[in-house]
């Protein structure tokens, strides 16, 4: 017989909590057929949820998994799944807090670069799924008269991401993704990475000193002159022509506008 309406309010709350915590008892009202037990039956859902989300994390963070080994990664991912289940049904968006989780995960405290490798992987996947747009043709920039260049602003390509790391996150990410050994990489050397997708393939580059500051300023809507000025202050040796050719080659921007005063704040 149906129970009163109030008894079913929030049923799924308890069902969901018991899915993520195997120490909790079965949710009220969950039974097997014909008086059978439901322990192993409910465990099928627990297993489906955990294994599918651990698999999703392994798909999203293959470089981290390779660095810590599969068994360790899967055990650790179970903790993360229970702590931070996805908020969206679009599973390739899962794992936004995984880098921070790695930073705080005690057994990995000797490998502080892993969090930034995870950030590289999230940026890589975001670039992979970002909106399509043609990259800025070099001719467009070349056509801007020299006297207007300082006032030129750039529209970031939807795929463009910059990761600044206190560690050699770009070299470690690339070596792990390409299944190369980490020989010769000194983890404590800071690196900046530029992730783009000018056409269909995601590209990852290590940026020379200062370039990340310059590109971040352009992405934030600063003019070419402002971005260059800010960067020169912090990085006296900043190689501006090298940064420009890198950003064009990478397709970091999709458009540029000379001499137009903008009141809008580009995100």
């Amino acid at each position, binding site marked *: 017989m149906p129970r009163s309406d109030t008894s079913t309010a*929030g049923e*799924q709350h308890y*069902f969901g909590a018991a899915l993520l915590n195997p120490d909790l008892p079965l949710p009220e009202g969950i039974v*097997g*057929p014909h008086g059978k*037990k439901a322990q192993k*039956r409910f465990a*099928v859902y627990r297993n489906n949820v955990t294994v599918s989300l651990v698999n999703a994390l392994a798909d999203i963070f293959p470089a981290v998994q390779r660095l810590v080994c599969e068994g360790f990664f899967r055990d650790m991912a179970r903790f993360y799944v229970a702590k931070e289940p996805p908020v969206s049904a*679009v599973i390739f968006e899962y794992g936004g807090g995984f880098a921070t989780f790695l930073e705080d995960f005690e057994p990995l405290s000797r490998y502080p670069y892993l969090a930034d490798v995870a950030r590289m992987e999230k940026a890589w996947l975001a670039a*992979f799924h970002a909106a399509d747009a043609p990259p800025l043709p070099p001719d467009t920039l070349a056509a801007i008269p020299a006297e207007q260049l300082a006032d030129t602003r750039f529209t970031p390509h939807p795929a463009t991401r910059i990761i600044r790391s206190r560690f050699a996150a770009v070299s470690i990410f690339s070596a792990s993704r390409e299944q190369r050994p980490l020989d010769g990489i000194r983890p404590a050397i800071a690196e900046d990475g530029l992730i783009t997708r000018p056409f269909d393939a995601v590209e990852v580059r290590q940026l020379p000193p200062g370039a990340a500051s310059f590109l971040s300023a352009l992405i934030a809507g600063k003019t070419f002159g402002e971005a260059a000025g800010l960067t020169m202050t912090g990085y006296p040796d900043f190689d501006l022509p090298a940064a420009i050719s890198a950003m064009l080659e990478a397709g970091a921007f999709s458009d540029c506008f000379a001499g137009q005063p903008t009141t809008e704040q580009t995100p």
Partner: protein
Amino acid sequence: MTQSAPTSPIVAASRFPDGPLPPRAGAGLKTEHIDAILADDYRIGFLEVHAENYMGDGGPPHRGLEAIRAEFPLSVHGVGLSIGSESGINPDHLERLARVVERYEPAMVSEHLAWSSHDAGYFNDLLPVPYNDQTLNRVVAHIGQIQDRLKRPILLENPSTYVAFEQTTMSETDFIREIAQKSGCGLLLDVNNVFVSATNHGWKPLHYLRDFPLELVEEIHLAGHAEDTDDEGDPLLIDAHDRPVSDAVWKLYEIVISQAGALPTLVEWDNDVPEWPVLRREARLADAILARLGPTSLLGSRHAAE
């Protein structure tokens, strides 16, 4: 232009080939199969995608699906709308589904009788609901909301389940029939789910099919299942989608087709995905059954008459 000679509106309206899913075998689309499918002399009847995999704004997934959609009928199958959810349909997720549907103009859109999201998050699994008036009203309201937004009817799929609820007051088949009648949705009959749930709950699959409103079924799903045991040591089947369709499910499928007529039939294989020829072999088995039993079926004339 306000006045024009009568022309076919279809030609102008669609970026893609138009038309319904054919009453043939289709396959669940896997990225790694796209080139093989496009190059194959065997033309699969249609392809089906999980909507959530195409909810990104752009990139390679869309390039692959555009190439497929240019040549084949498409079905969009949602796995994340959480139609049975107590916390309602997520409007953002519904918008994202609508964008996929607008982008690819699929012949069919379907979802599950299940829930997967709650306040705590998204569980990435199809979770069961009790069959009673309260759930019925909730599910009907949610399907109405989805169909209003998509401006088309959807198909609802029968679930595979492992547990039962004390709160259940009606049979699964009555529950599904009533949802369809009240919401106007069509039905997707997953024959593997029938077999899995029947085994797990001690129903007879043939009784389930006898009670199921076959006249509302517009698509069939077939898949492989794994075998485990329950607390009492009896068989507990898992809807694993990781192997060929079992002989028992093929037999049930033959019964469905001989009664309902030829229907678009999807072979699903989502885990341990094999090379395309293995999936194609499963599709050809379904094609052969459709060709053999479809024309002589009890309800066989209904599709031709439409």
